[in-house]
């Protein structure tokens, strides 16, 4: 046993009535018919080393490449991009005479670009490899022969091995359970990683293998399993075990699946059946779909447009060329046209024209920015690094930073419209705290829930603001003091939001956050109705199925409960002085400190029966006999259920308790009602006979019978009180939801939990509030599958949907908010093709949507429906394996890291440690990345059009011969060196407003979803700017350098002089353009932008110094020819200014007369108006919130409206 812990050995199966009662004739029904050929020799792994019994090893690999396949595969991947393929062809053709350029100037940039992309691939894949290796090197205890077990890394585990898995360890492969530390061979398994369900599942081994429960017994153990072949179905398994000369059938109840976890059980022995990629969980793994952002998809269209444009101008060129060649070139004796080859053959102009088409396609290839993809990739990797490095998204508790797992989607973060969120583990931490209770009609518990706290703070501010706006006349004179107050509260709110809510109130005891002097320290004895209190505490302590573990070090007990609520109850009972300290097979021992403090009494309660909890019954009861011999039925359950079952004289506190329960619900708490009933000996005896009979019988109606009997018993109850447990939200969740709602995002909750829990959490997160109209769409529970019934159900749902839609349409109150709550069963119908659009329409009209009891697959289907139905960007966030489908389906998948399961994180595009970081991820990083990428892509097209078109214009002056006016080296360096770095710095460092402002003005986020920076207007504007610039650059230079001397020395300009001057102008113009585009200059931007221009001159200088064999006519061009010519500098200045003039005038006009939000905020910040006029600043901040119907801001507003309405009524009644 683990140190410091003592646990009674128990036959757990006796604790439960329904779920784990073993049918007495287990294993007798004979072997299953097994389809499939897998044979496993238990405990003889050596037999599995040869074919045909050699199965795949337990080594897992999720990498895309390995050392050998990397090169071919990665290269193939690269050239699947059309643009890259085009450049590859161009590079290949550059080796022939067709090409207008030298081979190197085509191949070098391509090699650079492809090489860089491949390096990125390699880096990402190596990360995956490291992750895999971590898993492969986990150790588990394996039978090494002769009854000795030793640790071995997972990847060395073979089929047939007997492994011993200890508590809280993951199973290394799919295993057959042989025995466990419990005598009846059961164990508890947490399958959160597989299906996201947090409740523990019970697995039990075959009766015959139970005795194999120590290391020694495996010395001579052999057996053979025949079973199905590997398959992805998690819930089925067919197989037989041959052991001891007999054949036993196996079912899923004996199978422990890889990646689930052993809980509440000290150890299990099991034999390995499926290893590595054969295991069910890995069979289930699908390759995560590669996602592309909206901007990138749109970018493809732009590329297609440019391609079309390219083809058009190439056709113009080649037709021009063919015409010239046919009609004019024969006269151009200086070309020796009689002496020519196919490329310039006047006799065959069509053929020459065709060749020239290819030449032209290569020549004008500069229209397609070769470096666009690679620059974007570099930028995104750097952006991702910033996300990973953000200290504000680092979670101190789990030690996990945020992680951008793929960098493709950074800018998509800035365009999210709908968030689909999982509940457990994402919004809540799945930890319950006992917070309040109502006993005998008196409410106890003074602490407020997180929701209440946050709402109070918010309310304080809002009221101030309402006051202010009500008295605009007195503002100046009066508001000084108010302003201070409000500022203080604002600051307070900020601290509430940023720091843990109620840090000082953090419960010392996990699960217990109750404070009330009337109950604590035995003071309840002084309260009236002590007997009811006593009962209340006893119900808390007895009505449960947990197992206590005595911690020797502290002397107190910890509990292993099935659900966290139950744990919270037991802890609460302990704190109230009723410590549950021992459980035996048939009794529960409570150590009661009161009513005689000082002398704790151990009382033993005989457990007669347990009527356990199911989601259908929504209640659980125990029947106990106390020390006096009195038989009691203690019951806890959902309030509605309990209230229905109260006896006439048990309704004493019903009214008050209902009121309390409503208050608790409003405060976002989970409530249960507690009740009891006294039983007569004879009454119990007659019932018990029936009940035992039902328990023993086997057959389809067993369940129904048990349920009916339980139902009979749980009547005529007497209400004692109610409990309120806080399903602890993760830190900062309500605030985060509030902010996200203010940023205009819609939030849907998809949970596997039951409807009540989901609604409670909805309240806790302020997704629901009192006064909101709840539209619950449900189905009557019909299990029959006949077609007519199905049709009827569907009809019914359709009716509900249309009615609800009509109701929303007819609603006149602009503040009315609707919430749609739908359960999984209904969803199966609602997601069918013919009515899904009605469903979606209704859901979109509602302020919040909660889907409960949904399966992982439905989560994915809902996500797809939203994604495809609304055409907007969706983000799915979750933590468990049950969220994987939805994470992969959504445009962006976010996984919560830090919890133990990694599936969601592995499938996600981004991982964060806590839900609250989502705000920063979207509102800051998403906003920035979207703007950066959008501006960058636009600029890229501008710059390449500005450059590429000059080549085309020149053709018209060079008889369309395919001659370039620029030196090959200039062309090569243009995209790679001279203009790429500034645009990368734009993509990495640009900030329109600082991160604080992003957070303070959530409305700025809407620029992304509304796509203000990458709409066609903007894209075409930039392209037009590119065309304009190309015209200016080309024609001004051509006219300036037309035919006359360009220097005092009388020399005329040759092609290199003109080309170099033009190129200088281009470099200046595009770099000045990007400087105008940027609004945020750190030294890096300055260095890169101005550095690029300097680099150009440096290059020209150095190039001119190389041997003339390399530089050709550019030899000493700058020093000798251009530098001393004033006209060169004059032309540069003129062209640069003229190119940028329209853009400058445009932005001047826009910023002055039609400013966007961030422009105004930039100005406010620049003039420090936010410091001078803080009143205005806070007012604007609160106005900047998107008009929202969810979140606690909306809640507070609703409350204020309500109060004001009441006030008005009062006034009017007074007046009349």
């Amino acid at each position, binding site marked *: 046993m683990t140190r410091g812990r003592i646990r009674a050995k128990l036959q757990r199966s006796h604790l439960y009535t329904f779920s784990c009662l073993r049918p007495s004739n287990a294993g007798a029904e004979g072997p299953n018919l097994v389809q499939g050929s897998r044979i496993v020799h238990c405990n003889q792994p050596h037999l599995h080393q040869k074919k045909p019994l050699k199965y795949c090893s337990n080594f897992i690999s999720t990498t895309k490449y390995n050392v050998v396949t990397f090169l071919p595969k990665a290269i193939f991947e690269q050239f699947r991009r059309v643009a890259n393929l085009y450049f590859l062809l161009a590079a290949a053709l550059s080796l022939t005479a067709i090409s207008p350029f030298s081979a190197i100037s085509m191949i070098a940039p391509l090699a650079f670009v492809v090489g860089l992309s491949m390096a990125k691939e390699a880096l990402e894949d190596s990360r995956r490899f490291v992750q895999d290796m971590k898993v492969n090197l986990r150790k588990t205890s394996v039978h090494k022969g002769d009854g000795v077990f030793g640790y071995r890394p997972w990847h060395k585990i073979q089929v047939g091995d007997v492994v011993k898995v200890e508590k809280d360890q993951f199973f290394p492969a799919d295993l057959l359970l042989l025995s466990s530390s419990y005598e009846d061979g059961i164990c508890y398994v947490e399958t959160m990683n597989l299906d996201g369900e947090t409740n523990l599942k019970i697995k039990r081994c075959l009766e015959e293998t139970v005795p194999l429960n120590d290391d020694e017994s495996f010395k001579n153990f052999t057996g053979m399993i025949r079973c199905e072949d590997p398959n992805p179905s998690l819930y089925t398994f067919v197989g037989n075990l041959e052991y001891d000369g007999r054949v036993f059938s196996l079912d899923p109840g004996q199978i422990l699946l890889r990646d689930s976890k052993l809980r509440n059980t000290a150890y299990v022995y099991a034999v390995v059946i499926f290893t590595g990629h054969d295991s069910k969980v890995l069979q289930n793994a699908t390759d995560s779909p590669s996602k592309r952002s909206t901007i990138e998809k749109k970018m493809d269209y732009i590329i297609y447009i440019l391609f079309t444009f390219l083809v058009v101008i190439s056709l113009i060129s080649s037709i021009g060329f063919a015409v010239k060649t046919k009609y004019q070139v024969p006269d151009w004796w200086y070309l020796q046209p009689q002496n020519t080859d196919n490329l310039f053959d006047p006799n065959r102009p069509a053929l020459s024209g065709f060749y020239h088409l290819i030449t032209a396609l290569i020549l004008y290839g500069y229209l397609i920015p070769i470096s666009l993809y690679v620059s974007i990739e570099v930028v995104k990797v750097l952006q991702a690094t910033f996300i990973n490095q953000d200290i504000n998204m680092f979670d101190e508790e789990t030690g996990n930073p945020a992680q951008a797992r793929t960098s493709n989607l950074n800018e998509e973060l800035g365009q999210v419209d709908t968030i689909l969120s999982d509940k457990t583990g994402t919004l809540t931490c799945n930890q319950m705290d006992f917070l309040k209770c109502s006993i005998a009609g008196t409410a106890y518990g003074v602490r407020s829930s997180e929701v209440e706290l946050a709402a109070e703070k918010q309310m304080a501010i809002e009221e101030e603001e309402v006051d202010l706006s009500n008295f605009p006349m007195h503002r100046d004179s009066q508001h000084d003091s108010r302003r201070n107050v409000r500022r203080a509260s604002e600051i307070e709110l900020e601290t509430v939001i940023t720091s843990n809510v109620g840090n000082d109130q953090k419960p010392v005891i996990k699960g217990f956050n109750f404070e009330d002097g009337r109950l604590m320290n035995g003071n309840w004895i002084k309260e009236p109705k002590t007997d009811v209190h006593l009962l209340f505490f006893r119900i808390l302590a007895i009505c449960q199925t947990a197992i206590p573990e005595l911690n020797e070090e502290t002397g107190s007990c910890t509990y292993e409960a099935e659900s966290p609520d139950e744990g919270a109850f037991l802890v609460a009972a302990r704190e109230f002085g009723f410590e549950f300290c021992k459980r035996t097979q048939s009794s529960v021992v409570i150590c009661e400190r009161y009513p005689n403090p000082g002398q704790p009494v151990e009382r033993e309660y005989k457990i007669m029966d347990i009527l356990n909890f199911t989601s259908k019954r929504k209640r659980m009861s125990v029947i106990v006999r106390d020390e006096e011999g009195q038989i009691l039925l203690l019951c806890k359950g959902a309030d509605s259920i309990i209230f229905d079952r109260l006896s006439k004289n048990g309704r004493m506190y019903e009214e008050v308790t209902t009121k309390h329960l409503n208050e608790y619900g409003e405060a976002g708490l989970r409530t249960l009602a507690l009740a009891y009933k006294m039983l007569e000996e004879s009454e119990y005896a007659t019932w018990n006979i029936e009940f035992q009979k039902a328990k023993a019988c086997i057959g389809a109606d067993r369940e129904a019978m048990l349920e009916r009997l339980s139902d009979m018993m749980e009547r005529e109850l007497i209400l004692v009180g109610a409990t309120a447990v806080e399903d602890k939200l993760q830190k900062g969740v309500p605030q985060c939801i509030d902010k996200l709602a203010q940023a205009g995002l819609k939030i849907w909750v998809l949970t596997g939990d039951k409807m009540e829990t989901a609604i409670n959490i909805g309240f806790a997160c302020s997704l629901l509030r009192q006064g909101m109209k709840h539209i619950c769409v449900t189905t009557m529970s019909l299990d029959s599958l006949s077609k007519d019934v199905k049709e009827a159900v569907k009809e019914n749902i359709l009716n509900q949907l249309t009615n609800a839609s009509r109701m929303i349409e007819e609603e006149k109150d602009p503040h009315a908010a609707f919430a749609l709550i739908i359960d999984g069963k209904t969803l199966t119908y609602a997601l069918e093709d013919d009515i899904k659009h009605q469903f979606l329409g209704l859901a979109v009209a509602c302020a919040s949507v909660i889907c409960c009891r949904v399966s992982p697959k439905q989560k994915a289907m809902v996500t797809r429906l939203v994604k495809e139905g609304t055409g907007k960007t969706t983000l799915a966030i979750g933590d468990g394996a049950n969220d994987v489908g939805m994470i992969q389906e959504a445009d962006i998948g976010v996984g919560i890291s830090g919890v133990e399961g990694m599936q969601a994180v592995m499938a996600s595009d981004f991982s964060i440690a806590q839900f609250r970081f989502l705000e920063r991820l979207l509102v800051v990083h998403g906003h920035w990345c979207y703007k950066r990428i959008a501006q960058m892509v636009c600029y890229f097209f501008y710059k390449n059009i500005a450059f590429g078109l000059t080549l085309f214009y020149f053709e018209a002056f060079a008889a369309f011969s395919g001659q370039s006016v620029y030196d090959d080296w200039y062309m090569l360096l243009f995209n790679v060196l001279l203009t790429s770095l500034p645009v990368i710095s734009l993509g990495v460092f640009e900030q329109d407003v600082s991160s604080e402002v992003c957070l303070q003005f959530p409305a700025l986020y809407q620029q992304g979803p509304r796509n203000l920076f990458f709409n066609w207007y903007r894209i075409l504007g930039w392209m037009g700017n590119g065309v304009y610039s190309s015209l200016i650059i080309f024609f001004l230079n051509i006219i300036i350098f037309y035919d006359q001397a360009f220097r005092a020395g009388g020399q005329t300009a040759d092609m290199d002089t003109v080309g170099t001057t033009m190129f200088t102008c281009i470099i200046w113009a595009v770099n000045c353009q990007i400087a105008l585009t940027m609004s945020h200059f750190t030294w890096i931007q300055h260095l890169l932008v101005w550095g690029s221009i300097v680099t150009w001159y440096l290059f020209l200088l150095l190039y001119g110094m190389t041997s003339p064999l390399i530089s050709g006519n550019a030899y000493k061009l700058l020093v000798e020819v251009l530098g001393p010519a004033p006209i060169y500098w004059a032309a540069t200045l003129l062209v640069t200014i003229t190119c940028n003039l329209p853009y400058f005038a445009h932005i001047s006009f826009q910023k002055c007369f039609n400013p966007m939000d961030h422009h105004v905020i930039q100005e406010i910040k*620049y003039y420090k108006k936010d410091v001078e006029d803080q009143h205005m600043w806070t007012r604007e901040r609160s106005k900047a919130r998107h008009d929202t119907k969810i979140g606690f801001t909306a809640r507070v507003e609703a409350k204020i409206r309500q109060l004001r309405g009441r006030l008005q009524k009062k006034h009017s009644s007074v007046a009349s």
Partner: protein
Amino acid sequence: MAITGASSSGGAKDGTSDSSSVARRNSKKPKYSRFTQQELPACKPILTPGWVITTFISIGVIFIPIGLASLFASERVVEIIDRYDEDCVPLNYTYNKLAYIQSSETNKTCTKRLIVSKQMKSPVYIYYQLDNFYQNHRRYVKSRSDKQLRSKASEDDTSTCKPEAVTENNSPIVPCGLIAWSLFNDTYGFSVKNKVLEVSKKNIAWKSDQDNKFGSDVYPKNFQSGGLIGGAKLNASIPLSEQEDLIVWMRTAALPTFRKLYGKIETDLEANDEITVVIQNNYNTYSFGGKKRLVLSTTSWIGGKNDFLGVAYLTVGGLCLFLAISFILLYVIKPRPLGDPSYLSWNRGHTS
């Protein structure tokens, strides 16, 4: 036994896990730096009306003087242009110019008189100007061998010179290629008042070309010896580095209309001087309808006569001043206080 062994090791793990997990946590924590937190100090210029107007005005203020200065400079340049390709064809060949120019028997000498309109200070540059001559045609531009021009050792390096690379018996042509082969070969002789004007052909090419691109040990060889005669012949006894006409010609022009430097006259020409030019009209531009002009020009700091630069500067400068005024008016008519929150979208949404 094994159980206790296993769990005690588990216990030991528990004991160390606290400190190690703290270390692990810290190891994952991003290190703070202004760079990684994107908080580098930055200047965030904003476009205030002041800046806009200042920018426009200063562009205007800078551009207009530059424009005036270049116009003035351009005005000072004196240029005489004379087209002679038509005039120098004898009347009987008017309809058959090609035959005239291709025949070796016809007299190519032609005399023209030019009047100097204004005084031309020395040096007066002499240019020939060709029209519709595609020196920038790709086939033409590529047809040369820089290696061969540069050193005697690379004489055989004529692979890029097609179709004018080697003679019929496969010995290399120096200088090879279409450019050299089509060298301009009209010549001009000048005299004023019967006094011959010296034409200096020195230093008409770039110094670097002479020194580094055209070898002083490379002599013309097999040049214009094939069946097709293109343009000028070269004196085989002068190294290429001294053949400045060739060097100038080899710098291919960017446009189909171009001038190239022929020589310099080092004496001043007075106004109303009549210059007699004796032209040897050898070069065939008649087959492709090209024009030939003789240009005499002085220069200024902006080179030859170039009104465009000045006009362009004045236009852009004027435009900027106009924009400056328009913006001033706009600001006056419809002022927007900077940082005025009423322009924020949420404040404007209600009014509009």
